[in-house]
């Protein structure tokens, strides 16, 4: 049984692929509706209700993951900007020049700063904490953070794809059970008409 843990591989040697991914249960694919209902011991309405609930749960998880994705997508450009500044500072230091920069003091009000030979930078770590690092250390830390953020984003995107696949499977199953039910009623009606 080939467990597909990468986000791109969907095909597996069994029709079900992975049973779950990072806490998200996989939707089981129904080969035949009648067999499924008989084995589960459910009537049509209960089965539909169960699947609808599953669909809602999937949607809730999707919203959470989308929020996380937005966060990460905002964080990555931030880290890149920080890296840009550190690089500029290092370049200026190499030239032996001071960096003159205009920065926003308050809304619409800017002030000028002259940054002399700077060996260190302070990095905002969040939670009201700011630490001083040497330029090289800062570079390493920022690059590591950037890599981690990108890797997390990739995993998250994989999770979302998996989740959407399960939603699609569930929706299709709901439609099939519904149609099967319609088919059953029609054939019952036509047998009643014939007798």
């Amino acid at each position, binding site marked *: 049984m080939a467990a597909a843990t990468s986000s791109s591989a*969907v*095909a597996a040697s069994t*029709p079900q692929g992975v049973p779950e991914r990072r806490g998200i249960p996989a939707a089981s*694919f129904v*080969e*035949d509706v009648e067999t499924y209902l008989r084995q589960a011991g459910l009537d049509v309405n209960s089965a539909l209700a169960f699947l609808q609930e599953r669909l809602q749960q999937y949607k809730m998880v999707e919203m959470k993951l989308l929020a996380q994705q937005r966060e990460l997508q905002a964080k990555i450009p931030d880290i890149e*900007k*920080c890296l*840009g*500044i550190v690089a*500029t500072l290092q370049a200026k230091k190499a030239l032996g020049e001071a*960096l*003159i*920069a*205009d*920065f*926003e003091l308050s809304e619409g009000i*800017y002030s000028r*700063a002259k940054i002399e030979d700077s060996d260190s930078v302070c990095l905002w770590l969040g939670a009201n904490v700011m630490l001083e690092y040497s330029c090289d250390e800062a570079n390493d830390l920022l690059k590591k953070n950037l890599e981690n953020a990108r890797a997390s984003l990739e995993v998250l995107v994989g999770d979302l*794809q998996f989740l*959407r*696949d399960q939603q*699609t*499977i569930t*929706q*299709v199953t*709901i*439609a*099939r059970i*519904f*149609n*099967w039910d*319609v*088919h*059953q009623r*029609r054939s019952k009606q036509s047998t009643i008409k014939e007798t």
Partner: protein
Amino acid sequence: MQQGDGTEAQVTWEDQQNINRFGRLNNRFHELTDEIRLAKEANENLEDAGNELILCDEDVVRFQIGEVFAHMPMDDVEARLEQMKEDAAKKLERLEEEKESILAQMAELKKILYGKFKDAINLEED
């Protein structure tokens, strides 16, 4: 989902995988549309910046890095801007190519799925 008349073809695991793949491609297509819009805006902004630079005749330009405007000599700024424009153009091209590829794949899948399910499936945008 479409309501069938109860006589449509059976859905196999392969069909389900095709439907899933179509769903994924469709999602990616929508994301790409947004990304392309942003990339086009970025390209235009860089163009405008380039034009402003040509008009400006000062030696020192305030170049935005992060939240601050660093004073940089005109030549450096021009070089950096050129680099940024090149990167942005390449990114836009890459996104457009991906979009084309996705549209082609979606068309293929539509053929397969409509071929099997005809009216029982709806793959169009609402």
